[in-house]
């Protein structure tokens, strides 16, 4: 335990993971920039339309930094980004940083509540199924889970919107609710959260079921049973903790995919957020906004994966042990 948290191993592990994360961030923006070079057609002209004067196109090219060579564009972008400046929206003239900061809380709220709901429902469903493998309940839950996984989030979102908002009128149709009005915002949050969470409920349920089944066949569980521990306690106290590790591991990917899914949900429920912001920017090819949003989304994704890696190392005694050994220089 103290081996893992002592400075050496954690620092080295963290440093190498951080370096990779930074490289990936720079690389992802470089990829985006280089794509604009490869593809035929001038982004400025596409944005402005065919009737724009050459002078106007030139001004826009300069504003979007399209005249600079690739490495300089990436360098300038990151130099400004590190100072908190993600560029300027060429259409409205607003600061991209402000736009992103205004949108971000909505999306984070949505993603976190969706993940929360998925974990709250997915883990118990998975447990129920795993405790009675092969039973009717297990089979029903299996079909239920796979259906949840297979139904695209946007189909769920539209159907929820139709039945609960349009037909029944229980929930508001549009927006994120009045700012500062917590109950109203919660009311607006419920359907989008369900729509975004549905696939992950099924996914986590299946994951927990299969890893719990695996853990339950381990010798140390047999030992716990042999000591006469009640089954409930064996599952809840000894097995579930280890069985949740794969769930933690996929949450990193999950956050990223949720940022993607948020695009659909935000567009369908007309919620302001990072997803709808990047989508609107992409539709009109507003590159500075696209770049700024993508940087933030990729950064969140990379950060989430980083955190998950650390959580994983901390949760799994085997990984913890291995890292502790590298530090002390011993090892087998």
């Amino acid at each position, binding site marked *: 335990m103290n081996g893992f948290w002592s400075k050496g191993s954690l620092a080295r592990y963290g440093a190498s993971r951080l370096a990779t994360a930074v490289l990936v961030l720079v690389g992802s923006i470089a990829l985006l920039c280089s794509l604009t070079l490869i593809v035929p057609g001038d982004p400025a002209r596409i944005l402005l339309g065919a009737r724009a004067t050459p002078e106007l196109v030139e001004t826009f090219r300069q504003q979007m930094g399209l005249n600079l060579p690739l490495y300089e564009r990436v360098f300038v972008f990151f130099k400004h980004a590190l100072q908190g400046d993600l560029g300027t929206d060429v259409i409205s003239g607003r600061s991209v940083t402000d736009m992103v900061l205004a949108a971000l809380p909505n999306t984070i709220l949505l993603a976190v509540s969706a993940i929360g709901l998925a974990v709250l429902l997915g883990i118990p469903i998975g447990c129920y199924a795993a405790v009675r493998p092969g039973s009717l309940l297990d089979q029903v839950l299996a079909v239920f889970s796979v*259906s949840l996984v297979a139904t*695209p989030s946007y*189909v769920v979102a539209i159907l929820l*919107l139709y039945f609960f908002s349009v037909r029944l009128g229980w929930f508001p149709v549009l927006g994120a609710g009045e700012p500062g009005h917590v109950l109203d915002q919660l009311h607006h949050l419920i359907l989008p959260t369900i729509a975004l969470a549905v696939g992950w409920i099924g996914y986590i349920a299946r994951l927990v079921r299969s890893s719990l089944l695996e853990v339950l066949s381990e010798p140390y569980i047999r030992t716990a049973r042999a000591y006469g521990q009640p089954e409930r306690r064996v599952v809840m106290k000894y097995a579930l903790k280890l069985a949740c590790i794969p769930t933690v591991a996929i949450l990193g990917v999950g956050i990223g995919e949720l*940022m993607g899914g948020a*695009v659909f949900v935000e567009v369908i429920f007309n919620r302001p957020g990072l997803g709808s912001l990047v989508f609107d920017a992409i539709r009109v090819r507003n590159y500075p906004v696209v770049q700024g949003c993508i940087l933030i989304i990729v950064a969140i*994704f990379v950060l989430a994966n980083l955190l998950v890696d650390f959580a994983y190392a901390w949760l799994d005694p085997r990984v913890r042990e291995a890292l502790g050994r590298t530090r002390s220089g011993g090892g087998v």
Partner: protein
Amino acid sequence: MDILRRIWRSPSGRIGLIATLLVVIGGLAAPLLATHMPNQIDVAARLSPPSATHWLGTDQLGRDLFSRGLYGTRVAVGVALAVTAIALVIGILLGVAAAYAPAPIERIILAVFDIISAYPTLILALALVAVLGPGLQNIIILVTIVFVPRFGRIARAQTLTIKEQPFLEAERALGASGGRIMLFHVLPNIVGPIVVLASMNIPVVITLEAGLSFLGVGIRPPLASWGSMLFDGFTYIGQSVWPVLVAGGMLTLATLGFTLFGEALRDAIDPKLRREP
């Protein structure tokens, strides 16, 4: 045959096989099965519920939903197969090359994979649409880019595990060229798990393509695709829910079918691959 029998034995495999067959046959036989031309407009009967003439109702232009849905199958499955096949070939080539290449080249290939995987799937697809523009051909190109690293990574990992095995060493000792070893000895040995991964990838591609088309940056109208049908239906949802039900239903049937089929195929070919659900 044995594999098919094993798939048929499990209930979920059976459902998957039937749903997959329904979707594939529906797509292939669309011209025979369709009761109307997919783009035939009948404004008088717009947004009508199911009836004897329009089995599943009509959309906002009075186009027959059953027929459009069938033709949409062709787009969805066609794109999914094309993307998976191309990504499979490129991914295997890059993956095997990475396993055999000198360290600097291997690192470059892996870095590119890492960068591509650093994007959430949909966000990368949207970013690429921003650059390439929408349309059938571009959708195939950009979705392929999204999926190449998945195949590349597993191809590399598989190659590394068999690279040092005695039979390849023997082959090298006999004087076989690197290309010959990769093509005739490495490839057949790594292809199994990768094909399983490819089959499980199909529903993901279908969902992604339909999603992009739903957002209006995928397949362009009037070509019938489930995503754009869903978008049209969403626009007119206050007047009729049928377009959404038809497009969403067919889409879900296809993804569910391919998911169950892919999992049954995996279990039938190699249960050891079953690492995650």
